């Protein structure tokens, strides 16, 4: 990159790797799709290595059992015994988001022309994930409770004269859920990557400027970016956890109706 101009948004461009058109539809294999496939491959390898069902588990099996046990516990605490059948869904969401986030942090840019891409830093991807979990809430809610599901909008014990105020608020807060789910993940990922890109450019521009001040700025930025890198690892895990947690809370609403 030329010194001076910092372009933090360039890393989010979706480029076709294998161009493919059917009729008027562009279904090229993009770098986004390629990274999602890589995510799937990593997850499959991880799970395959740990599902040996040995009586005395090895390290790998312990890692997989720890992960599944973590989500199993999360679902059990938040939904109760009825939530057992949602564990695979919440687990898939959690592991996909976690691995996609972490793969996006790989320092692949040391190979010229390569750079890591984070599928979860795009609203189209996180939006689809959020719609998946929101529509599951709707399906489960109406399946189990029929039109009684609408009582979700009027918490039990509300004075009836408060209903005209409470119902619109509850409806809005219900309808905002998919947006808040998608927005949180997407913006958290994008903000972290912009921050790393900007401070990485500070290092490059500062060191290449040659002046004492520029080199000082470069070293300070380097120290900062090490800390930000550690924080990003934390954020990756935390956002995946928050997504799984909120999904199970919303499912709890649909299963148990308050």
């Amino acid at each position: 990159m030329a010194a001076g101009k910092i372009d933090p948004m360039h890393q989010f461009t979706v480029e076709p790797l294998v161009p493919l058109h059917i009729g008027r539809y562009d279904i090229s294999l993009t770098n986004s799709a390629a990274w999602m496939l890589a995510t799937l491959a990593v997850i499959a390898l991880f799970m395959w290595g740990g599902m040996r069902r040995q009586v005395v588990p090895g390290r790998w099996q312990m890692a997989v059992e720890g992960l599944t046990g973590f989500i199993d516990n999360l679902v059990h605490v938040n939904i109760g015994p009825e939530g057992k059948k949602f564990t695979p869904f919440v687990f898939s969401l959690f592991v996909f988001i976690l691995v996609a986030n972490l793969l996006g942090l790989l320092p692949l840019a040391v190979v010229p022309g390569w750079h890591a891409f984070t599928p979860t830093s795009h609203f189209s991807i996180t939006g689809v994930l959020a719609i998946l979990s929101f529509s599951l809430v709707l399906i489960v809610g109406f399946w189990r409770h029929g039109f009684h599901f609408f009582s979700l909008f009027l918490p039990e014990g509300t004075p009836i004269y408060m209903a005209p105020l409470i119902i619109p608020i509850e409806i809005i807060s219900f309808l905002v859920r998919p947006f808040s789910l998608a927005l949180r993940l997407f913006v958290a990922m994008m903000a972290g990557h912009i921050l790393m890109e900007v401070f990485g450019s500070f290092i490059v521009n500062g060191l290449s400027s040659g002046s004492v001040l520029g080199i000082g700025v470069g070293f300070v930025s380097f120290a900062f970016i090490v800390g930000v890198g550690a924080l990003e690892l934390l954020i990756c895990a935390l956002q995946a956890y928050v997504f799984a947690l909120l999904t199970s809370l919303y499912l709890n609403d649909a299963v148990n109706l308050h």
Partner: protein
Amino acid sequence: MDVASAKLIGAGLAAIGTGVAAIGVGFVFGQFLNSALRNPAAADGQQGRLFLGFALAELLGLMAFTVALLILFVF
């Protein structure tokens, strides 16, 4: 004032919201620690609520960030 500079000032003003959300996130974790140290036995059971509160406080900061980005790159 021309539109380009007003845009930059507006994006800067919108970014204040992320700092305010930082206060909220700090408040959530601070209050959690405050009460967790008083009753450590009950702390583990409340982690779900801790992260729920964190997520809700953080979302507002992220929305401020989104508004800043919208002002910068969309309009």
